């Protein structure tokens, strides 16, 4: 097999058309950026233990950037409250910083641009494609909301931060930053779930961390927009590439706003990457170009 054929084989189904028409790099530009971002975030935490260069201490649950800025995970914080802990000021500031950040750049950017489990589940999904595994045990996408509820209730009952006894997201990132030990098992279970049991089982159906950011994300500023939807040829590549395909329909096929407003959207830009005619681009809730239906923007009235 020559190199070209190998690259073609490695490219996921959803991106093949775009890769053919616009080049492999162009069809993977946001994907590459996301992987770079995920690696960079981990690298920031690893320069300390590896090189003695302390940019950030701690991990995603709570950290200290450059010795000053505290950051803290809001979902853990809520469970801690439910467990009966009275927070100290520092963690309040950290939670407020993170929440404000995800209000600005879009709720589930954590999932697609930061979370290391995303690499695991994307890989499982890609492999599923390549191996032609189609077995799919249907799960309700709202299950994750009930897991949030269950985690908060269990925190209240047990007086502990309950989800952290299982959480694969913190197990993996703590594992990378502090050494993982037997924690690999939990991560392998997630990989297997996505590969053999349910398509996009973990991130799109079960993970309460992502779902919690999704609740914030409903109101966040930066959104993907189907700005050129009139040019759409119904090739379906975006639906295939998207981890949460149901979020695309209203923006692409509706007549209201161009923006993908569902909190489930991870702002991963797989739709932008995989579309061969640039139907999608990043936009914000505030820009009238993206937020209004095209009947309001096509003939610009003279000002």
């Amino acid at each position: 097999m020559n190199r070209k054929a190998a690259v073609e084989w490695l490219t996921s189904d959803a991106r093949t058309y775009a890769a053919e028409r616009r080049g492999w790099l162009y069809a993977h530009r946001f994907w590459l950026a996301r992987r770079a971002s995920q690696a960079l975030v981990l690298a920031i935490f690893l320069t300390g233990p590896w090189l003695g260069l302390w940019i950030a201490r701690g991990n995603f649950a709570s950290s200290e950037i450059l010795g000053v800025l505290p950051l803290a995970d809001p979902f853990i914080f809520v469970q801690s409250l439910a467990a009966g802990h009275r927070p100290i000021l520092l963690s309040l500031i950290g939670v407020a910083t993170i929440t404000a950040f995800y209000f600005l750049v879009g709720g589930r950017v954590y999932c697609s641009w930061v979370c290391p489990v995303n690499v695991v589940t994307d890989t499982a999904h890609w492999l599923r494609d390549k191996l032609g595994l189609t077995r799919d045990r249907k799960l309700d996408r709202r299950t994750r909301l009930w897991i949030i509820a269950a985690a908060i209730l269990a925190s209240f009952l047990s007086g502990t931060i309950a989800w952290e006894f299982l959480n694969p997201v913190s197990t993996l990132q703590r594992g990378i930053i502090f050494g993982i030990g037997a924690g690999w098992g939990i991560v392998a279970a997630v990989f297997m779930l996505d590969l053999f049991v349910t398509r996009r089982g973990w991130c799109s159906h079960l993970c309460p961390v992502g779902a919690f950011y999704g609740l914030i994300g409903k109101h966040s500023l930066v959104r993907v927009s189907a700005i050129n939807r009139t040019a759409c040829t119904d090739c379906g590549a975006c639906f295939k590439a998207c981890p949460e395909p149901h979020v695309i329909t209203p923006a692409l096929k509706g007549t209201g706003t161009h923006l993908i407003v569902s909190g489930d959207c991870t702002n991963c830009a797989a739709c932008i990457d995989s579309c061969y005619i640039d139907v999608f681009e990043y936009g914000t809730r505030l820009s009238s170009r993206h937020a209004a239906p095209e009947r309001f923007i096509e003939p610009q009235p003279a000002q």
Partner: protein
Amino acid sequence: MKNPSPIGQHPAPAESARPGTERAPPARKAEKTSSSAVSRRDFLGGAAKSAGVACLAAVALDQFIRTARSTEAKALRPPGAIDEEEFLSACVRCGLCVRACPYDTLHLATLGDSAAIGTPYFVARETPCFMCHDVPCAKACPTGALNAEIPNIRHADMGLAVLVDHETCLNYKGMHCSICYRVCPIRNEAITLEKQTIKGRQMVIPVVHSTKCTGCGHCEKHCVLEEAAIRVLPRPLGQGKAGRNNAGRGLTGHGSLKRGV
């Protein structure tokens, strides 16, 4: 909110409409209300079922946590750790305490370790706590799981050293090992050598004083036996408590947990 245009049609802009005056997503809203109106009963039934499942899941998770925790009563927490019950509601498993320790004493537990996954603990026999005067680990904790206000390391209370098997202890065998005594950072306070006559022989016996011992673990680390005869246990395991029947003696202060003092 009403859908201003039927789905699939793109009517010309209305006279009054200007960019930015309408930015709500009408199509989606309309879709939602109509579908829920049709199947309200289904929706409520589904919600009730899911809520039931969530409650079950919560109870199961709670039980799992209780089982997991019952095996971890032996974990030694970093200096300044608040009461174990509260500790698990406060510690977010960030590892800032681990990073702050200059001696790499602390670890974050992974699956199968003696502490709850992700929480900080140390193993005295491997690396004890070096009792830094300024308690950097506790000062680094962002959540209050470790008490940052702790005045100095002598208030730490990580555990209590206990001579678990005096029959193997070399001092009890009449030798003058006394390593545990000599390595103690606060010897003569936390641990003393007491002259005793046992079976007619003069011996010096290491004795730990529970109100002073911090549980740093140096004695356990350096005990020369293959398995240490002196070990640091968390207070609830290592310390006795005077009961209601105090055998005719008044309470002397011994037997009350240091934490409570």
